[in-house]
């Protein structure tokens, strides 16, 4: 893992022009398998989804649907579920902020302070992936249960009232999101921080920057690519997630993912499910473009 990251710190030498054009001639062949994959598993389903979203909403699973270019599906979808969209982005936003607040110091500690424990700590960050996402989320039900240790403790120190609970509250859903997406925040930030040349931090100290100023002016800006990719990798899947709300919340905490899931799999209301999916996709794309522009990291991504 480190060797791969290390090579990225090497300054890219001058490229001989003749060589690049020669490479370019054949290089595109390497893209073919990936492009085919994307065409079959992304492009085709997306187009299919788009058509599905325009089916006649009065159709049903049993009778089948007819294509009526029914754009009003989108209007209906937004009217009926805008609160779920709002809740999804609020939950995902809070979860992303908490992930950043916890993940950045963790990544910093692994990159700069862990010494010989570096690889061990990285394994610990990835270790949750060794078991199923569902199982781990289910076990959070035990952790946050009304008689469980966390609730007990919070009641003892009077943060939670006597009859207060965590399970089936927004806190539980957001905590689940934070837990499940933490590695997606930590690892990109770690990769960015690990590339930061320690001599630059020394140079900042040599030029009258206190350790904190040095961090603010040198380390943090240089780790921004990791922060941006980490927040995107956390926010995007978190806003479409439905497992955490399903297992740790109630219908009052349901997110847009829950609605899409039930429309597809329970109600078989394919036009609604498809238009919700496409709206979610569109909003996320707009937010990402805006965010990347705002942070000025287009060239760093």
């Amino acid at each position: 893992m480190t060797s791969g990251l290390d090579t990225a710190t090497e300054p890219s030498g001058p490229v001989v022009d003749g060589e690049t054009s020669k490479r370019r001639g054949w290089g595109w062949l390497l893209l073919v398998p990936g492009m085919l994959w994307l065409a079959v598993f992304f492009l085709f389903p997306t187009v299919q989804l788009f058509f599905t979203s325009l089916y006649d909403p009065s159709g049903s699973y049993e009778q089948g649907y007819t294509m009526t270019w029914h754009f009003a599906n989108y209007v209906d979808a937004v009217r009926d579920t805008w609160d779920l969209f709002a809740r999804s982005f609020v939950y995902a936003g809070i979860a992303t902020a908490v992930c950043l607040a916890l993940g950045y110091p963790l990544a910093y500690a692994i990159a700069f302070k862990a010494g010989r424990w570096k690889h061990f700590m990285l394994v610990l960050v990835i270790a949750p992936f060794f078991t199923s996402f569902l199982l781990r989320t289910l076990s959070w039900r035990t952790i946050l249960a009304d008689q469980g240790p966390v609730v007990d403790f919070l009641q003892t120190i009077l943060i939670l009232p006597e009859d207060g609970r965590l399970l089936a509250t927004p806190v539980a859903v957001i905590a689940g999101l934070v837990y499940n997406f933490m590695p997606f925040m930590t690892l990109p930030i770690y990769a960015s921080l690990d590339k930061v040349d320690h001599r630059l931090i020394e140079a900042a100290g040599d030029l009258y920057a206190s350790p904190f100023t040095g961090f603010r002016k040198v380390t943090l800006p240089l780790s921004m690519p990791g922060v941006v990719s980490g927040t995107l990798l956390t926010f995007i899947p978190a806003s479409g997630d439905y497992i955490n709300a399903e297992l740790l919340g109630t219908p009052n905490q349901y997110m847009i993912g829950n609605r899409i899931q039930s429309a597809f799999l329970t109600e078989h209301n394919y036009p609604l499910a498809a238009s919700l999916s496409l709206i979610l996709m569109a909003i996320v794309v707009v937010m990402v473009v805006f965010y990347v522009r705002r942070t000025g990291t287009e060239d760093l991504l």
Partner: protein
Amino acid sequence: MAEGKDLHLEGVTKRFGSFVAVDDLTLTVPEGSFFALLGPSGCGKTTTLRMVAGLEDPSLGRVLIGDEDITQLRPYKRPVNTVFQSYALFPHLTIAENIEFGLRRRGVKDYQQKTSDMIELVQLTGYGDRKPVQLSGGQQQRVALGRALINVPGVLLLDEPLGALDLKLRRQMQIELKRIQTEVGITFVHVTHDQEEAMTMADTIAVMNHGVIEQMGAPGELYENPATTFVANFLGQSNLIRSDVVNSTGDDVMIDCNGQKVAVESSRSHVDGQSAWLGIRPEKIFVSEAGASERNGHNRLTGGRVTDVSFVGVSTQYLVAMPWGQELMVFEQNTGQRPPLRNGTEVDLAWSGAHAFLLDAHQDATAGMMTPEDAE
């Protein structure tokens, strides 16, 4: 500029585990001087520099600027700036932002004017808005210099600042650095393994080896009268011949050099005992066909035979095999007075007693010689 800003190191020692990188080093660098710490890699010169910058803590000893003890000061509180070996320019900042970095951290008001003056001093006018990656190595080097100099530090530390440049650019930057140092009058402490670089620029050179200073002095003084075999070999080249001291008569030390009598000025003898290395720089030796020399009053060694002749333009370099089996180097300037000697010619060697030196025979005669890895 404030008076009395000499840099003092007092008994500074740095240990890494059981390895002693710098061993009880005491030296004074006078304010405004261009001081070079010269030595091979691993001799402790960079560690010394880092201790002055505050990037390493000394295990023992004190670092002072003027009367102020800075040993315990954190790097960002020291009136010292560094030009790093790799330049360490901030890649996310422009050239101007890199140069003004130190001033802005200290809250200097008119930093913009000072920055543009500095950009001009290091000859980068028009490059202020570029990023470091858009500059050549030599230009980056000048940014690193400007970024440090703009703070008008008590001492400017330069850690192999020209190491990454190609030979031609290096020569150019040597002159440039010297010009800037003279112009700003700041104390420069320059760490290098390149003896030519040190001799070109520095007022004073300290030659370091194994964590201690072998010898310190003006470049000419070190070159002409080295005190150890390490200095004799590391600064330029030397012929070292095993000899015995016969007696000391006032100004001269008489020695027996493999059966032939020669004299060395006693101020140039660094020997207490009987046996010694007689040192002569190759360019100080006159070579002539056997018996043809007219140089009276010179020391002479006879019985040599030319075994190799290499013509290098300004000079011809000879290898001369002596009767005791050693081959000596002789450089002769191509003045055109007589044609070059040919291989196999029987020759005599002569030199002035004011040009040889005597070193302690316990020292390794090959200490400080360039190995092929060092030479690249």
